[in-house]
């Protein structure tokens, strides 16, 4: 993995063991504060752990940004059913490549985060659901889990505290939709990755119909430092309603793409210009996808903002998964829109019509616009079709397909117009008939 050197402007917390020699081994981990937080948590009450996580203002790093402590608090602890921990390591949102680093360079941190979560809700078993393409990471996690069992950080009577916790990896098999939490649970149970109706949410009825804590890799990995240093400390790193740091994956047209750890609220232009080395010589910024391809794109003049949930929402986009895609003035936005919709069309699970058919038609229309055989009304049709999908699908994948499409067509309409079929439409003739002749 050609992981970049840390940048001086980073705030290094979650990534602090990445550059140690043999960073994935339990010896390195233990020599650098490893399992100290878990040891502390094993002596804390469930409420105290959850309160610390609530105080930290940690919000889910998988994309939706839901407050983690609140989610953990939803687990009905009196329920006689077993409780489970599930790690979402499906990482498939285009532009996102951070969970990979956490598992490759600090797998024990993830195990420690799971153990703390398990103690917080009284869970005794968990699974790390890792996308199938990440086989080498499954091997790394399997090895770390075996080490943790051997050192009694997993298994029966963890460190003599009487607490039991089992953890294993579970491979996916290639399906973006399985990153959606309820589809992931279906997949974990050995079924097609189609989402479930919610509520009930996983905290109440998740894996095998039992209360389940399901979080992103980075979310679990943030927990040990919160327990060690306190929720207030973590909260103070970020902005008022979102605490801590997060990993930003910068890709696309920058000179030094890479993954960088920044506090929530870090200025977007500093991330692009300082950390990622700015644009290539002679190029100007055109657009940015701020947090994975499901987010509406921002035009260059909208990018001067701090990266926190509220600022991104105000700008009409989302903080998302941390996958920032930078596009310079050489980018063909029609092609970009087509490539993005091709992805969602391919990944639509087919369960509901607006998404299954909508993404297909968007792909067809964008293909003819890209091929130069589209007509003017096609541009409006793309916008209308996508608008009609919004809020009308069974799971958020439909919105994830529609939102970027709407934003690109609206903000870069001139590029679509420049690509229309070069034909004269005679007065009184429907434009769509013209298509037959081009």
């Amino acid at each position: 993995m050609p992981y970049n050197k840390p940048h001086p402007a980073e705030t290094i917390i979650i990534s602090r063991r990445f550059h140690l020699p043999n960073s994935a081994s339990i010896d390195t981990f233990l020599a650098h504060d490893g399992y100290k937080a878990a040891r502390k948590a094993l002596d804390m009450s469930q409420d105290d752990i959850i309160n610390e996580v609530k105080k930290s203002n940690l919000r889910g790093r998988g994309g939706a940004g839901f407050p983690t402590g609140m989610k953990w608090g939803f687990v009905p602890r009196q329920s006689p059913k077993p409780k489970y921990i599930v790690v979402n390591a499906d990482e498939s949102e285009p532009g996102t490549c951070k969970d990979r680093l956490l598992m490759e360079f600090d797998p024990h941190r993830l195990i420690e985060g799971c153990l703390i979560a398990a103690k917080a809700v009284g869970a005794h078993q968990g699974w790390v659901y890792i996308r199938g393409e990440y086989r080498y990471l499954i091997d790394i996690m399997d090895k770390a889990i075996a080490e943790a069992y051997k050192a009694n950080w997993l298994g029966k009577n963890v460190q003599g505290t009487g607490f039991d916790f089992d953890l294993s990896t579970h491979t996916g098999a290639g399906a973006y939709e399985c990153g959606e939490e309820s589809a992931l649970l279906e997949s974990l149970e050995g079924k097609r990755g189609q989402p479930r109706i919610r509520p009930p949410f996983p905290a109440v009825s998740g894996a095998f119909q039992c209360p389940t804590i399901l979080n992103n890799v980075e979310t679990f990995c943030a927990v040990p430092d919160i327990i060690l240093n306190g929720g207030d400390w973590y909260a103070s790193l970020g902005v008022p309603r979102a605490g801590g740091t997060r990993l930003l994956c910068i890709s696309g047209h920058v000179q030094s793409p890479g993954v960088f750890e920044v506090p929530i609220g870090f200025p977007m232009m500093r991330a692009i210009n300082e950390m990622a080395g700015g644009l290539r010589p002679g190029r100007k910024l055109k657009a940015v996808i701020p947090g994975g391809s499901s987010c509406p794109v921002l035009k260059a003049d909208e990018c001067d903002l701090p990266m926190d949930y509220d600022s991104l929402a105000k700008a009409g986009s989302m903080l998302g998964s941390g996958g920032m895609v930078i596009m310079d003035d050489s980018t063909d936005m029609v092609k970009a829109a087509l490539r993005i919709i091709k992805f969602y069309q391919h990944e639509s699970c087919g369960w509901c019509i607006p998404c299954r058919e909508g993404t297909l038609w968007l792909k067809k229309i964008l293909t003819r616009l890209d091929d130069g055989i589209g007509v003017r009304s096609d541009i409006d049709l793309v916008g209308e079709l996508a608008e009609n999908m919004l809020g009308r699908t069974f799971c958020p994948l439909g919105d994830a397909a529609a939102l970027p499409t709407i934003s690109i067509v609206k903000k870069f309409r001139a590029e679509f117009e420049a690509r229309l079929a070069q034909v004269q439409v005679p007065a009184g003739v429907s434009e769509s008939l013209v298509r037959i002749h081009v």
Partner: protein
Amino acid sequence: MTFSPELEARLAKMLESYPKGRERAALIPMLMYTQDEVGHISKELAEEVAKRCGVTTLQVEEVVGFYTMLRTKKMGKTHLQICTNISCLLVGGDELWQHASKKLGIGHNQVTADGSISLEEVECIGACSWAPAIQTNYDFHHYVTLDQLDKLIDDLRRIQ
């Protein structure tokens, strides 16, 4: 059907990793790991996995149809996967794809006549900051140039 001792050990452990009576949960991992050894999911393999996980063959086929990494068709000795999603597209992913397809004379999900290489245009493989990226079987290659890809294909053809 029996598998190698290492795989048998893995499968036994796999079945114990889920709550009692929930062996079906091992279905997808079992298909992935057995496919790696057998090559593709034949009717015989589907029946075997169905038996071990306590489901019907139809339920296995239903699952196989959903996931892109589960294949009922034999692929090449090396399965070459080229990402053309947005981050890779911006820095030459599509050129890599076109080049590989032309050089090998095959398209998406096709296999060369000698069986050495199969080709797939894949969605984001989580290597966006090190794009353009490709995978040969489970191995990642980052910052891939046209020349490197060209040489890689020549090498892969030789080791068939």
